């Protein structure tokens, strides 16, 4: 069953003071099954961030629809959007977006507190997640005391603690060194195995090779897709790399 269905998505930006319209997305169609780990790849300016923003209900499409679990995102009222996001989506950002005024623990609690959960409930939810992500030791620390990789783990914990229908990750390894990046990607794989559906935007081949499927976006359209099948990470890495080279040269040929 498809948890996410994107059809005929179009997004045009009109500059505030006139000038040329920019077509960020032309016609995007794809769907994501429950429990999938999908990576979206594309060059800068290909429209992948715009796509993610629309999926996150941070932005509205000019045309087309996004159905999350059969529910059209464009039907949500402006006032309810934040609450909807909180209940149904989990976010992991490139720049962590961890609040420096909270301890790591409180940062993870934030969406639950907003949902009005009691401290006991939150604590019960946190224990297995903290164990899984290996952040039990740093829960009481403040963000300035921990490393980037640890911050990102806390961000992942914050994203999954609400048990969202979909986790959206925007270049989650972009601000990390390669070791921490590998850690985070392994964590993504393992939470995916636990049943979480993940969509990750990236331009790192390494990151994409952890996914089960890779969508390639170019000039505002889904250009190509690759399934992992039975490949190992290394084999899949090679395939993605080849495809990218092909796309790049093909693009030049066009």
């Amino acid at each position: 069953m498809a948890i996410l269905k994107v059809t005929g998505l179009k997004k045009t930006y009109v500059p505030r003071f006139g000038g040329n319209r920019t077509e960020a997305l032309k016609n995007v169609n794809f769907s994501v099954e429950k429990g999938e780990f999908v990576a979206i790849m594309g060059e800068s300016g290909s429209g992948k961030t715009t796509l993610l923003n629309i999926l996150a209900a941070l932005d509205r499409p000019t045309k087309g629809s996004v159905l999350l679990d059969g529910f059209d995102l464009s039907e949500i009222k402006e006032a309810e959007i934040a609450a909807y996001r909180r209940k149904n989506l989990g976010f992991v950002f490139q720049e962590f977006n961890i609040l420096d005024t909270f301890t790591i623990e409180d940062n993870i609690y934030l969406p639950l507190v907003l949902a009005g959960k009691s401290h006991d409930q939150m604590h019960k939810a946190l224990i297995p997640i903290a164990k899984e992500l290996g952040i039990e030791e740093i829960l009481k620390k403040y963000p300035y005391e921990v490393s980037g990789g640890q911050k990102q783990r806390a961000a992942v914990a914050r994203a999954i603690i609400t048990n969202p229908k979909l986790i959206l990750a925007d270049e989650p390894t972009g601000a990390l060194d390669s070791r921490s990046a590998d850690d985070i990607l392994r964590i993504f794989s393992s939470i995916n195995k636990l049943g979480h559906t993940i969509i990750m935007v990236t331009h790192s081949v390494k990151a994409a090779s952890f996914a089960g499927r890779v969508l390639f976006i170019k000039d505002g359209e889904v250009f190509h897709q690759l399934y992992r099948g039975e490949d190992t990470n290394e084999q899949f890495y090679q395939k993605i790399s080849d495809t990218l080279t092909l796309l790049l040269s093909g693009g030049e040929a066009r």
Partner: protein
Amino acid sequence: MKALLFYPKLALDGVRKNKRMYLPYILTCTGMVMMFYIIMYIGICSVPDSMMGAESVRSMLALGSAVIAVFACIFLFYTNSFLMRRRKKEFGLYNILGMGKRSIARILCFETLIVALISLSMGLILGISFSKLAELGFVNIMNEDVSFDLSVSLPAILRTLEVFGVIFLLLLLNSIRQVRFASAMQLLHGENTGEKPPRANWLLGILGALILGGAYYIAVTIKDPITALAWFFVAVLMVIAGTYLLMISGSVLFCRLLQKKKGYYYKPSHFVSLSSMAFRMKRNGAGLASICILATMVLVMISSTACLYFGEENAVNQRYPRDINITFRFGDLKGLSDQTSKAIKRDIDNMTADAEAEPSNILSYRSVAVSGLLIDGKVELDASKISSVAHGVDVMANVFQFLFVPLSDFNANVGEDISLEKDEAIICVYRHEFEGDTLSFNGGRTFRIKKYEAKKFEHGEGYIISPCMVIAVPDLEYAIYGIADMRDSLGEGMLQYRLMYDFDTSLEAKEEIALCRSINEKIYSSSTHAGEMEINYGAYYSSISSREENRQDFYGMFGTLFYIGIILSIVFTLAAVLIIYYKQLSEGYEDEARFSIMQKVGMTKKDIKKSINSQLLTVFFLPLLLAASHLAFAFPIIRKLLLLFGFESVTLFAATTGISLIVFALFYAAVYKLTAGAYYKIVSDAKEQNA
């Protein structure tokens, strides 16, 4: 030439590009300069030398200007640190691109110079125009025209330049120090490096609470006005120190404690606001404390000076119970003989008749006055022995003014017909209590106290602010036996032999003053040589004053005080508003990113509004609450101080205090509404910028 202009141009560009940050900063500097000038100006120009208590008003103003200078320094450092956090990034970039620290320091110099020039000139211009405006209002408050100097005060300008020159220099040195000791990378990331959350400092918090408690204790326990005057400034300094310590570390402590209460902390409306408050309190504590102190000062000043101004009619009436008030003092008991007093009254009545008037509502009695320490029914008059008598007793609060009054005069005054034995006495006690059957003067007589509960004796001595006891005795000579010969350390007799003759007339104010002057002249007529005054009737001193004449003096004095109170209140309120506004603005910019993150995580606009409200309410009304508490504890000590001016009405002071508090709270709430709006606008704009 080009190289010469390079740094000023870079500095000017820096200021211009960071307009959003620099504008409020310059505004703040300007405001501070303006306020300082106004206070200096009032101190130098607006207090007439002839005014009663001009000296104490001046010293109060000097204290006020010192307070403003300290505030300006603290506050400008706070605003400057905020500015530097933003600017460091730019300097880091310059540094990486190859500009030496020395050159950066040069840019900083020019920047400071630009800010100083703009804010000093604007502040002085505004200060001068505002002080002129205020003077026009002053003439309205005073009942009559007072010669008034509508000029610019050069000393005030110079003083302002001096003080703010030093402050700007300190700011510059501090900025250079920050740039000097940081690497290029540190500078570049200066704004983003996670700030450490403040640790709660128990020691300082407890110290603050103790100091504040001590100040409150002093304010509440002080019994008499003289001690109150001596301790008032100590208490003020203690309150200021205590407030700062308490706000800076106590507030962090408080937030931390609340955070430990899980049921309270993990609520949507408390969660965000509490954590960011705890995080910010250390820096904000000083700002909040400043607001609190300023609010307290405004409230104290305006309530007490308003009380003086509106209560002056009362004060005049108490000090001068009748239209014409005459007192004679004599060297011994002979002056108090029936013949002498009859002669004096007859002569004054004649003089009054010459002015076509007749004395009415007469208050007249003879008395022998002496002051001494009263403990357990025993009176010690010898100042040198007082320390040995008073064991753990507040001496100042138990020093009485004793007035021995002949029983006949007492009876006439209260309208009774009481008779007493030789060693019996009737007493009336003012501003104190006395329960006892006997009253014994050390070295003199002991009296049996006869119960008396009818109408209190009107002694009409408005100047007496200490406890006072009227002792009615049948025989004055018998009563003062023993103490009449006592001498003080200067070898002077301790007793005063007085005759009071106060009365109303039906005359107009002008005629009344004229009558008073003519009586004065005639009584002193025989004194031919200056210096060696000799008065008729064998008296060595007389005071003849008309209420009308003094009323004008009172209006002059209290009008001036009220005017100064109003101006200072406006100035302090402005300072508080500036601090609040700047705090909101700067915090808004800081929180912009935070709220943007929280929106991404799923915080609704409604949640944001709620959280902001909860945060602002606490931050805003904490200083106001503390100020109200300060005011409540200041109430008794200020009441005692008002006694020095002859004000006794508690209700009037309570009323002016209450009204001041309400008006200030309303005004404060309006400012809150306004700045909360500005803050919310900044924070909620965050989404559009970041999405």
